[in-house]
């Protein structure tokens, strides 16, 4: 009965490994456009926020050498003030607009900072998972009186890193203990990605959904319907 008062916390981890996305974009069979994918994710995020006013959200970019919050931004962040700079059009809902602007800006920043040398084909999924869980834990602490339903959604394209195996599994067990489901949307084609071994385990153990996206243009559909 109490489910209506729960706070739903969705943490989205987006794999932003440039090498993997470049490979996918140049795939002759099924090219994949990063911007299109981000657009669809943003709409999904808007849908999540629109369901309930109290719904919480965090977005983390899992890059080649670091994991970084795209949203929410730290309150002292000078960039947060800059966010106000673009005028909010009258047809945009304030919260949607803030999130969308913030994410796009942070992503641009991330891309600008990355150097060619970084471009190894790897992604800090384990780091992002632990970052996500730290944040979930913080939200739970801040709302001790109400029940927080947490979920992690991983949008993944990079191949597994064997060296991250132990770290990833530890994160998965921690998520299981904290009753956090990990859902995974995985892009893979013949020329990029490859089979992931860790992420199916993550979904399986935590009771989430693992989905290989057969048709990337329909990502939004999968996100909205397969909840």
């Amino acid at each position, binding site marked *: 009965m109490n489910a209506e008062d729960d706070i739903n916390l969705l943490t989205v981890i987006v794999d932003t490994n440039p090498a993997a996305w470049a490979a996918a974009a140049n795939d002759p069979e099924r090219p994949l456009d990063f911007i299109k994918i981000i657009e669809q994710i943003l709409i999904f995020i808007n849908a999540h926020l629109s369901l309930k006013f109290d719904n919480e959200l965090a977005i983390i970019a899992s890059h080649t050498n670091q994991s970084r919050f795209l949203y929410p931004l730290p309150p002292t962040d000078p960039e947060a003030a800059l966010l106000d700079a673009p005028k*909010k059009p*009258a*047809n945009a809902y304030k919260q949607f607009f803030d999130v969308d602007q913030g994410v796009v800006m942070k992503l641009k920043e991330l891309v600008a900072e990355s150097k060619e040398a970084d471009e190894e084909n790897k992604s800090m999924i384990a780091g992002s998972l632990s970052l996500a869980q730290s944040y979930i834990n913080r939200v739970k602490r801040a709302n001790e009186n109400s029940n927080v339903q947490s979920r992690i959604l991983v949008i993944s394209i990079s191949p597994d890193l064997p060296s991250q195996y132990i770290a990833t599994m530890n994160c998965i067990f921690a998520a299981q203990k904290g009753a956090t489901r990990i859902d995974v949307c995985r892009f893979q084609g013949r020329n990029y990605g490859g089979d992931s071994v860790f992420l199916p385990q993550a979904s399986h153990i935590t009771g989430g959904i693992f989905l290989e996206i057969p048709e990337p243009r329909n990502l939004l559909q999968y996100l909205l319907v397969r909840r």
Partner: protein
Amino acid sequence: MFSGLKESLKKLSKLHICVDQHEHLQMNKIFQENFHNALVGGGNHVSFGEPMDDKKHEVDIPLLDRYAAETWETVLHYLVGTPAERCPKAVAKLLEASGLQEDAGGDGRQRMGHDELDGSSDQKLSITSKGFQFLLLDVNVQVWSLLLQYLDLAERQLNMDIVQVLNFLFQIGTLELGQAYSIEPLTDTQTNVLRDLKHFGIFYQRTKKSRRFYPTRMATSLTSGSMISSRKPEDNQGYIIIETNFRMYAYTDSPLQIAILSLFVSLQARFQNMVTGLVTRDAVREALSKGITADQIITYLTAHAHPELKKQSPILPQTVIDQIRLWEMERNRLRLSGAWLYNEFADMQEFNQICNYAEPFGAVLWKNEKKRILAVTEEGHEHVKAFRKRTAAARAGQSGNGAQRAPTLQR
């Protein structure tokens, strides 16, 4: 899981968002289109307010909060009839229409005709029991119940287009606190609504002719449920201490809070920054007779308990809570319920038979075995009557004499 789904679908179809068509669910086309627009940020509607960008006459959030709190308090003051509070006509009209206040003098019609609502007519209006209940509610609930009344009033008396008013009300729920919005895109009706609701502290306008308005926290938290109550505690410190000996100390000098307290506390002394009083049986009973419930009193006391008191668990002394509840129960000693009386049973056996039949489904309200009288609930009456007929017939067949006297029925 499934019952939850059904419940949700039922709500959606009640709002005409989902339409059931030949076993397929279909979303309302207009809703679908606009929801889609909202999600992807498309379309050229102004549903979320047209912000004003230039930083002229910057208004900060504390000022808005202060303004909202003060204005709202003025309305409440007016409601409890604190003297020396002038009140705009819109507020007075709404309070009366909502039944929170009523005309003690009885010549309301004539008074409504006056353009100015001055001090002399203030005195004629006095708070009703509904008004007392209203005072003990959460601010957000208060605002909503007034807005509902406003909608009602707008449609019936002010001949406003209800759709436009609703449209505006939902729009203000999405506005941003501390941001100036232009009144240009508003229709005439909506501008009128804005002018009326300004008196309740829902909006702030620097001057009457200003082309911009600022929503206050009361407006922005309209559609977000608990926001206002969860943020309030910082600026709205609790002030009431209650001891187990029913003594109450309230650290306040606000006439409004004192007026509210005096509803169910017999106040004894007033100092510069506090009042003391006793929670007495008479005072509480008087509140109860005005239609205030014990739960409302307890909720109010708990919500405004002094921080020192809040450290305890439970917050209020158990004796006080129990006693207030007992006082309420005292008033509910008698309960009226419709019943059928069965008497003049032929013998004990018949009486017992009917009792045994009626008791398992709770139809027996009262019985007296010595006098063989039985009171049956209205719902049970039909069954008991049918049963009695059956048994009477059976007994008649058995004994062979049809002159078995049936028990008479009395209402």
